[in-house]
C-alpha cells in the first residue's frame, strides 16, 4: 500500500506542533477572509504569500499555511451568504439562493451547520480523491512533450475564459493582456531582452506576485474607497446553534452528489469552484421531486453548492500539482507560491518532492477537521467579525500589501509596479473585464510560448507537429469546446449575475 505509507510520511511532516499551529491560524484567517464580503480566497492567499516569506517559513510550512487559508476561505464564504445575502466570495454565490431565505425564516443556525457539514464532506472526500488520482495523473508525464503542453495551456485559457466570465471577448482580451505582460523580460529561446527599455528591473520579467497583489488586493482597496466602504451590518440575529440531525440526514444525498460534481469541475483546468457550486446546485434542483422548494429556504439547496465548491477546491489542486496548470484563480496564486519556493509543480513533483506533496495532503485533511470544529460549534466568532468596520480593514490590507511585497523583492520599483497593477485591476473591474485571465496570462504565458517555440525547434518549423499525437489532438478539441460551449449553453442556463463586490474565485 504505497498510498498509506506515503500518507503516514505526510502526517509525520504535518503533525509537528509548529505546522499544526500554522494550520489552525491559516484556517482561522481563511474563514474570516472568506466571510468578509469582497475578500475572496484569491485575495486572501495573494495577501498572505508575502507575509509567509517575511516570516521566513520553509516550503512545507508556507504551503500548509496558505492551503489552510484557501480551504478556510471556501468554508467562510457561506457565512455572509447566509446571514447578509452577500456572498463572501463568488463560489458562495449559489448558497445565498436558499441560505438567506432560511435565515429569514429564523433557521440561520441550521443553515450554517448544514452548510458547514456539507463543506466538510465536499472538501474531505475531494482530498481523498486528490490522494488517489494525483499519483495516477503524474505518471502521464512522460507522454507530454512541447506540443502537448502547448495544447494543455491553451485548454486552460479557453476553459477559464469560456466559463469564468459572462463575456468571451472580455476574457479573451484579459488573457491577451496577461500574455503581453508575460513577454516582458529575457526571451528564453533567443536570449534577447524584450520590452525592457534598457531597464534592468524588467530583465527578469514582471514578478507575478507583484501583479497578483496589485490586481487583487490593491484594486480591492480602490474599490472600497470608491464605494465609501459600505459598512457590513448583520441583518439576521443568530440564536443558539444546534445540530439539526434530521436535516443533515435528509441532505446527505445532496452533499455526496454535490461533491462528485464539484470534484470533476475542479479537475478541469480553469473551471474552478464557482462552476462546481453552480453545477451542483443546478443538478440538485433538477433531480429533486419538489423543485418548487428551491430558492425558498430548502436545506438541500444549501448543502449541494457548498459541498460542490469545497470539492472543487480540492479537485483544482490536482492539475496544479501534477501538470503545473492551475484549475482556478486561487490555485493559480498557489502555483505562483510554489514556483517562488523553488518547487516546480509538474509530473516529477511526486517523485522528487514526495514530502511536499504528502505533507500538503496530510495537512489538508487536518485543516478540514480544524475547519469543521471552527465552523460548526464556533461559528458565532466569525459572525462577529463580519461587523469589522472597513476603516480598520482597509488600512490593514494596504499595509500588508506594501510591506509584504517590499520584504519579498526589496525593490521600490516593484512597489510602484504593484500600484500600477492595482489601477489596472480597478479599471478592469469597472469595465467588467475579469482579472483572473490576466494572472493566468502572466503566469502561464511564458511557459506556453516557450513550449510552442520548443515544438517549432524540434519539428524544424513544421506546424503540423502541434497536432501529431492523440493527446494533443484531444486537448485541442477540449479547448475549442471549452471556449465555444458556454456561448450556446448560456441561453439554457441563465446564470445569476455576480454581485459587484464579489471577486472571482
Amino acid at each position: 500500500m504505497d498510498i498509506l505509507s506515503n500518507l503516514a510520511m505526510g502526517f509525520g511532516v504535518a503533525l509537528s506542533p509548529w505546522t499544526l499551529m500554522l494550520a489552525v491560524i491559516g484556517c482561522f484567517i481563511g474563514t474570516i477572509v472568506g466571510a468578509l464580503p469582497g475578500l475572496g480566497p484569491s485575495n486572501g492567499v495573494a495577501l498572505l504569500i508575502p507575509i509567509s516569506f517575511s516570516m521566513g517559513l520553509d516550503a512545507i510550512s508556507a504551503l500548509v499555511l496558505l492551503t489552510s487559508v484557501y480551504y478556510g476561505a471556501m468554508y467562510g464564504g457561506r457565512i455572509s451568504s447566509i446571514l447578509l445575502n452577500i456572498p463572501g466570495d463568488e463560489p458562495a454565490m449559489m448558497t445565498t439562493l436558499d441560505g438567506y431565505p432560511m435565515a429569514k425564516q429564523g433557521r440561520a443556525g441550521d443553515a450554517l451547520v448544514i452548510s458547514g457539514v456539507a463543506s466538510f464532506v465536499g472538501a474531505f472526500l475531494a482530498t481523498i480523491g486528490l490522494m488517489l488520482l494525483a499519483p495516477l495523473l503524474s505518471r502521464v508525464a512522460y507522454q507530454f512533450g512541447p506540443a502537448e503542453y502547448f495544447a494543455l495551456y491553451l485548454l486552460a485559457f479557453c476553459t477559464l475564459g469560456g466559463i469564468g466570465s459572462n463575456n468571451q471577448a472580455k476574457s479573451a482580451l484579459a488573457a491577451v493582456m496577461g500574455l503581453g505582460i508575460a513577454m516582458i523580460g529575457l526571451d528564453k529561446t533567443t536570449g534577447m531582452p524584450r520590452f525592457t527599455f534598457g531597464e534592468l528591473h524588467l530583465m527578469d520579467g514582471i514578478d507575478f506576485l507583484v501583479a497578483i497583489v496589485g490586481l487583487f488586493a490593491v484594486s480591492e482597496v480602490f474599490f472600497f474607497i470608491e464605494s465609501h466602504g459600505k459598512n457590513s451590518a448583520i441583518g439576521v440575529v443568530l440564536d443558539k446553534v444546534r445540530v439539526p440531525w434530521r436535516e443533515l440526514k435528509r441532505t446527505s444525498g445532496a452533499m455526496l452528489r454535490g461533491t462528485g460534481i464539484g470534484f470533476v469541475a475542479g479537475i478541469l483546468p480553469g473551471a474552478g469552484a464557482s462552476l462546481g457550486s453552480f453545477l451542483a446546485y443546478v443538478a440538485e434542483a433538477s433531480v429533486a421531486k419538489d423543485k418548487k422548494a428551491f430558492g425558498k429556504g430548502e436545506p438541500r439547496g444549501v448543502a449541494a453548492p457548498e459541498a460542490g465548491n469545497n470539492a472543487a477546491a480540492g479537485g483544482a489542486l490536482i492539475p496544479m500539482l501534477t501538470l503545473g496548470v492551475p484549475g482556478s484563480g486561487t490555485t493559480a496564486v498557489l502555483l505562483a507560491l510554489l514556483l517562488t519556493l523553488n518547487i516546480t509543480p509538474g509530473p516529477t513533483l511526486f517523485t522528487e518532492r514526495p514530502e511536499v506533496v504528502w505533507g500538503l495532503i496530510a495537512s489538508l485533511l487536518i485543516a478540514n477537521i480544524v475547519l469543521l470544529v471552527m465552523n460548526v460549534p464556533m461559528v458565532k466568532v466569525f459572525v462577529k467579525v463580519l461587523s469589522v468596520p472597513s476603516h480598520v480593514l482597509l488600512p490593514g490590507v494596504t499595509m500588508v500589501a506594501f510591506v509584504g511585497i517590499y520584504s519579498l523583492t526589496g525593490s521600490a520599483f516593484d512597489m510602484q509596479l504593484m500600484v500600477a497593477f492595482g489601477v489596472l485591476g480597478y479599471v478592469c473591474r469597472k469595465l467588467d473585464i475579469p482579472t483572473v485571465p490576466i494572472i493566468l496570462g502572466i503566469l502561464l504565458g511564458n511557459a506556453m510560448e516557450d513550449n510552442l517555440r520548443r515544438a517549432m525547434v524540434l519539428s524544424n518549423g513544421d506546424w503540423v507537429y502541434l497536432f501529431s499525437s492523440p493527446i494533443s489532438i484531444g486537448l485541442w478539441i477540449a479547448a475549442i469546446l471549452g471556449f465555444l460551449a458556454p456561448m450556446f449553453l448560456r441561453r439554457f442556463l441563465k446564470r445569476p449575475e455576480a454581485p459587484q463586490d464579489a471577486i472571482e474565485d
Partner: protein
Amino acid sequence: MTRFNLPALSLGALVALSAPAFATECIAPANPGGGWDFTCRQIGRILYEVGAVESPVQVTNMAGAGGGVAYTAVVSDRGDDADLIVAASSATTTRLAQNAFAGMTADQVRWLGAIGGDAGVIVVAADSPYQTLGDLVAAVQADPSSVAFAGGSAVGGYDHLKVLMLMSRAGFEDARSIRYIGLDGGADAITQTVGGFTQAMTGDISEIGGFIASGEVRALAVFAPERIEGYDIPTAQEQGIDLVAMNWRGLYVPHDISDDQFHAWADRLQQVADSEQWQQVMRDNGLAPYTLIGDDFQSWVNDNIAEIQEISRQIGIIQ
C-alpha cells in the same frame, strides 16, 4: 547652508545604520534559497568559524536581472568597499560575456576565486542507441538535425554552451545547425529526454544524480577534470574531447580595493577551501573540488569570457 547639509547628514546616518563598521557583507544577487544565497551563507559561515573574519558575515539578498542589479550596485556604489564580497557562478560570467548586464563588463570587478563546482554532465535516455560520447558526437557531425538537445537553461545559457563547446572542441564548426531547447530546470529537461522528445540532455550532476541512479537515463560523460566520486561516469577528456565545464561557485570583490586587500581576501578564501567544513558542504551538496583563487582565477575568467563571446557570436546572441 543648512539646507544642503541636512540631507547629506541624514544620508550619512542611513549609511552608517545599514552598514555597521568592520562587519563583512556578502551580497547574494538572488532571493534566499538559490545557489548564490547558498554560496554566501556557507562561505560566510565558514569564514567566521575558521577565524578569517572577526564578526559573523552579514548576507544581503539583492535579487534582479539574473545578478545584474547587484553587479550594477557594486560597480557604481561600492567600488572601493574592502569589506564586501559577492557570490558568483558560471551564470555571472556567461551573462557578462553576452552583455546581459546592460553595458557592464567583467573587468569592472575583481574575480576573487572559485572553490568548488557542480560538474557538467551529458545524458541520454536508457534505451538510446548512443553508447559513448563519441557515438553522439559522430551522429551530430553526420546529420545535425538527427539529434535535439535539451537543457535546463535558456538558449545561450550555460547548458546550451556546454553542447556548443562540446561540438566545437570535437571539431564541428556549424554551431547554428545544432538543435537545442531550453527548459525550466534540469528535471523538465530530463523528462523531455526520457519521453523521447529530445535525444540528449545537458545539465549539472547535482540535479541529475537521482535520475542517473534510478536508471531512467544513462550518462555519457562528465565535463570535469576527473571522475566524480560516487558515479561511474567517464570524463570527456578520457574520451578524447578536451572539455571541462564546471558550474563553479565563487566570489568577486569590488574593483577599486588595493592589491593588498585583494590578496588578503584570496588568503581568506583559501582558508575556507582548505577547511574540513567546506569539504563537508561540498559532499552534502554534490559539489566537486574545483579551486582557483586570486590571479589564477582572474586569468581563467578572462579566457572563459573570450570563449563564450566567440561561441555566442557564432549563434547570433551577440554581434
